[in-house]
């Protein structure tokens, strides 16, 4: 008879272990949530170096305030609020700082997606993709901040609209409106390349 497959521990159990003094349990929490933390921060700051620093600070803050978390099962949303608050504060008083060993952490190039992998076999498609990417970057920069944030957090990072609303300090209806207005403007700005 085969032994039962070990299911990963829930966030709630890991948090309970952390609060009892098991430091390695929080390391597992870091591994689980770091990608989303960095992604949310990156979308708000637009700079990966800053996003990595802020994410590190967010995990430290979360670790220190773990005993204040009302519902351990909702750790992810709680952490994202910390990340977004720190990111928005950082954005307001923008300064560049870099204490992480970034060369080790940042790999060359960008995360591979299915489109990028396919484009490798088709140079024309790769070039067109790069041109589109550049134009999109410029177009996003022209959007008002809330529209850009709403589109990136909701459409790209696929955060729930309720969570996006908390991050942007607005209602869910406002998030829908920001996404719509942002897309409408992008449609206009990118009509030549789409």
């Amino acid at each position, binding site marked *: 008879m085969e032994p039962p497959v070990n299911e990963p521990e829930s966030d709630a159990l890991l948090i309970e272990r952390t609060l009892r003094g098991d430091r390695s349990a929080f390391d597992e929490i870091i591994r689980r949530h770091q990608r989303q933390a*960095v992604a949310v921060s990156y979308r708000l700051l637009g700079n*990966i170096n800053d996003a990595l620093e802020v994410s590190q600070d967010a*995990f430290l803050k979360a670790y220190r305030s773990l005993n204040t978390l009302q519902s351990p099962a909702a750790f992810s949303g709680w952490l994202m609020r910390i990340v977004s608050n720190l990111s928005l504060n950082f954005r307001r008083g923008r300064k560049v700082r870099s204490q992480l060993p970034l060369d080790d*952490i940042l790999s060359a*190039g960008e995360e591979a997606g299915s489109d990028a992998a396919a484009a490798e076999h088709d140079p024309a498609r790769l070039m067109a993709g790069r041109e589109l990417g550049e134009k999109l970057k410029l177009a996003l920069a022209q959007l008002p901040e809330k529209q850009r944030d709403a589109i990136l957090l909701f*459409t*790209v990072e696929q955060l729930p609209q309720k969570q996006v609303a908390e991050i942007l300090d607005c209602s869910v209806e406002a998030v829908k409106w920001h996404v*719509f207005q942002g897309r*409408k403007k992008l449609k206009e700005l990118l009509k030549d390349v789409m």
Partner: protein
Amino acid sequence: MNPHDLEFQISQYVDGQLDASAVAALEIRLRDDAAARSLLAEYQQVAAVVRGNTPLPAINWNRLAESISTSIDAAEEQRIEQRFRMPWMQVASSIAAVAACVLIGLFIFRSQEMTSPTNSNIAVSKPRIAEVSLATAEPAAGPRIAEVTIDMPNDDTALAAMVWDELQPRNTRVVVTAGAPPVMPDSLLGY
């Protein structure tokens, strides 16, 4: 439904954010309205372009996790050390703060005294070397002693004492006078 509302609905439809009845109504509209279908295609394309062309920079996640973990350990160790040092630091910083206030107060007080004339004849606010002469009665083989007359405005004897401490190791005899100084060339103001 006006065109603007239709576009808004289509944007939400792309995101799967419409309730069931709104979806049903919109799909009927889309079936019969080519312009609405064209609009839907445009919004779907924008959503796909944004999703597919905003990648996250590639990151070594293992290294990042290690780095975050290490930084937490370091921060916690530092916090424990600070807690241990805190009582001593509080006492030391309190004493330093009081001393700094006293020094700043003295400095301001002296500055005000030196810049506010008590005698209309006194035009300068700092001590001036009124006369420098070598004492001729001293034996040539011994150390030569210079006599320095320093005129202290307002007879600031405390400041004179400080100047005396400065000049004493340099084999000088200091004579301090008070009152309006004679006009001397600046080249003698060597301190």
